[in-house]
């Protein structure tokens, strides 16, 4: 009788152990995405300094007639990052004309008046997330011709890249 009871206890014990040898737990995270329309950027106006005088720096501000302009079309309610590749010199053949002191402004209206100012840079500038579906971006700078600057027509590329953030 004792042996019978012991066997039953062992059987019950091992059965219990087999069931509970595994312990399980779990947790959830979310996969999330926001689908947006494509963002586009087009060149509006060139940044134009016009005639400059040797030895005299000339600045074009974002509200000046010669300001450069880009136009951005994007999804509503989503901000974008404006990144720039900027020249340090304009060139005319082998001659260089230094350019710097870059200024920028972006606006949801097609006017520099009331634009949010920023400093264009490769690192990029974020617009606000509620900035409509169109943005106009204005760019200004200063050229600094040397006293012995060679006469000529100087040009350089200003590139703006736009991505959602």
């Amino acid at each position, binding site marked *: 009788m*004792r042996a019978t*009871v*012991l066997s039953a*206890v*062992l059987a019950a*014990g*091992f059965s*219990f*152990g087999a069931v*509970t*040898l*595994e*312990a*399980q*737990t*779990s*947790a*959830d*995270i*979310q*996969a*999330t*995405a*926001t*689908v*947006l*329309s*494509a*963002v586009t950027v087009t060149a509006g106006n060139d940044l134009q300094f016009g005639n400059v005088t040797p030895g005299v720096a000339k600045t074009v501000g974002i509200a000046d007639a010669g300001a450069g302009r880009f136009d951005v079309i994007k*999804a509503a309610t*989503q901000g974008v990052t404006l990144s720039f590749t900027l020249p340090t010199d304009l060139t005319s053949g082998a001659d260089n004309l230094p350019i710097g002191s870059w200024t920028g402004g972006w606006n949801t209206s097609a006017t520099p008046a009331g634009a949010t100012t920023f400093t264009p840079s490769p690192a990029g500038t974020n617009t606000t997330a509620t900035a409509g579906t169109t943005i106009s971006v204005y760019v200004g700078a200063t050229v600094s011709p040397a006293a012995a600057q060679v006469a000529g027509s100087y040009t350089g590329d200003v590139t703006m890249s736009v991505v*959602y*953030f």
Partner: protein
Amino acid sequence: MRFTWLFVTAALVAAGRPAAAQISVIPIRDLAFGPVIVGIPTSIGPSHPVRSGQFRLTAPLNSRLRFRLTLPTTLDGPAGAKLPISFSNNDGILVSSAPNSVPELFNPKANQVVQNVSSTTTNVFIGGTVSPAGNQQQGNYTGTITFTVTIF
């Protein structure tokens, strides 16, 4: 004598049973694709520093663990819209919190069996790819990823 055996048997059973409280899984961050453009697939790798999904698993040292990820095939969006999501064979990374631990790639679509020999804490990272159609409904999409761990 009979009660002595009963006690011994019960003690053996208790010692061999891993308590559920000994393992834990904590959701650390979502797999966040962020903005994606219609018609353009977007991938987030499991090693992405901020956008990859992450769980943190804690279990006694030298535990044998079996885990699986329950993965969505679509994310749910506005007005019943669905956004396809997929996972490649290298979209999972396991890395122990032990010093000098080496991250290990794994297939998040397959069950995994591991033994945590170097640390009680293991971080699990997951990446993936969403593939919006050219006419994908714009808006926010979400889906659930479940990480289940069994200790045995």
